[in-house]
């Protein structure tokens, strides 16, 4: 419930992308003419390693700056040009992303890290030095809820294992109550049990109105969870369709799935 991202009832917010390009040196990594993300509740984004999936998500979040093109957030009534905003403003608008390469705050315990995510700007002013109790009392229960769902070996301590850091990254994002959550390989390296828990949790959130765009190589997750799948290769989304269609498509089989998954 960060400032300004209370969900608007009704219309589902979508991300419109047009003319978006990004090159590193000679290599064009993303080159998308037109793309709309988020019109379905859960959208899968798959493609070979290096297709540009992470870069596309980073361009949306503006953690990487695009060479050309615009990204707009359209929630039915208003349109905001995301590609002009600072990253923290984009997150405040309810577009939030988890990280493929685990990210953590070295100095913060698991609890602290989660409190950071929920704390509002007005509580984080330099003169508000007695505000901690308020923050813990307001959001403690919500955080405890997540900590009860997912097991951490020592919630008061630091997250050490790769799995814990991955979960922490996800929970931090969920605590922001996003309108659109971009997930970059959220279950890579998680056990089947924990993966199932994560998906379960996401389903609940989706039922409450959140949209999900998910990059994953775990195909059980993609086929089982997505309403629609975008297939990306060499910087562009070249196919879109329901899971069954994508799954059977020869291009996808050849470039991505391999014969083992037909």
């Amino acid at each position, binding site marked *: 419930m*960060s*400032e300004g991202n209370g969900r608007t009832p009704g219309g589902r917010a979508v991300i419109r992308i047009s003319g978006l390009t990004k090159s590193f040196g000679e290599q064009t990594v993303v080159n998308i003419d037109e793309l709309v993300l988020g019109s379905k509740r859960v959208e899968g984004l798959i493609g070979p390693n290096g297709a540009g999936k992470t870069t596309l998500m980073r361009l949306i*979040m503006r*953690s990487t700056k695009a060479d050309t093109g615009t990204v707009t957030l359209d929630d039915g009534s208003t349109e905001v040009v995301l590609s002009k905003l*600072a*990253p*923290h403003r984009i*997150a*405040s608008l309810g577009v*939030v*992303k988890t*990280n493929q390469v685990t*990210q*953590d*705050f*070295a*100095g*913060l*315990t698991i*609890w*602290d*890290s989660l*409190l*950071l*995510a929920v*704390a509002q*700007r007005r*509580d*984080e*002013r*330099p003169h*508000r*030095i*007695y*505000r*901690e*109790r308020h*923050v*813990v*009392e307001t959001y*403690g229960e919500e955080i405890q809820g997540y900590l009860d769902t997912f097991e951490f070996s*020592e*919630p*008061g301590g630091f997250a050490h294992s790769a799995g814990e850091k991955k979960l922490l990254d996800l929970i*931090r*994002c969920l605590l*922001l109550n996003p309108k659109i959550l971009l997930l970059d390989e959220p279950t890579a390296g998680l056990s089947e049990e924990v993966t199932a828990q994560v998906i379960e949790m996401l389903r609940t959130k989706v039922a409450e109105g959140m949209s999900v765009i998910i990059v994953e190589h775990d195909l059980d997750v993609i086929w089982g969870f997505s309403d629609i799948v975008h297939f990306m290769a060499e910087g562009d989304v070249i196919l879109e369709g329901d899971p069954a269609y994508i799954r059977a498509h020869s291009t996808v089989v050849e470039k991505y799935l391999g014969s083992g998954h037909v």
Partner: protein
Amino acid sequence: MSAVWEYLFGSPAFLIFGTYTLMMIVGLGILLHLQLGVTGIGNFGVAGFWGAGLYTFGILQVHYDVGFWLALLAAAAAGGVLGLITGWVIADLDDDGVLAATLAVATIVFLAIESERDITGGRVGLGTIDFPFDVGERTDLAWLGILFGVTGVLLWYARRVHRSPYGRLLIATGTNEPLARSLTKPAKRTKVGVMALTSAGMGALGGLYGPIVHFLFPTQLTVAITVSVITALVLGGQQRPLGAFVGAVLTVGLFDIVIKLYVPLPRDVLEHTFPVTKQVVFGALLIFVLLFRPLGFLGRMRRETHVEGLTRV
């Protein structure tokens, strides 16, 4: 009894001056702790922010007869504005860039003061500045009491910051800025804000130093003071509010107060060998600490349960 008294306070002026210095180092160290230890901003220009305050205070008092409180406020404002600008400049630089830029700020302040002779007096000096009150012979002692109070307030504030959402925001911004941004935190504004706030504090400390020395010289704000503050903080523990205090006692306290005043060293040793030895020992101590206890004597930051009575594990 009186012999002991004589031994301890035989030279009260020296003792008091040594303690002033100690308090300055501790105060600046606590502010640097908020910059470096908490937010990860390696400010190598402490002397500049402090000096901006010191000279603002001095100029207003000497040339314009401005009253104490207003001059002190202006000193804080000078430090704060300088911090604001510096913060804005360094917000997007990497660690090395921050070191270089802050050192440059201090150098600019130093050169400006040295060259603007009309107003700062240059090397001739600027004075005199007096205590804002007079309680007789021990006015200097009363001033020391005030410095103790100010340092105490700074320490209290730093400790509160550690337990507040603000402190958490600073730590997060310092350790992983892109991640903090992605969680709706305005990293740049946060860094500029903390620089402005703490530099204002440094400027105010500079103002409070004016009456102590009565006469201001540019040599008072060389890199030496920055080095003392950094040494004290790193030695004591840069991530802990008390770090600067522990470090300053071990360095300035031990050398400039205890040894200088109470160890009967021959005069030429005291004048020539001692200062050099002191620097060597500081340097060696710093290397030793960085090698074997990089976070200083007090060690790593502790983020304990902040709110009593709540079931946080």
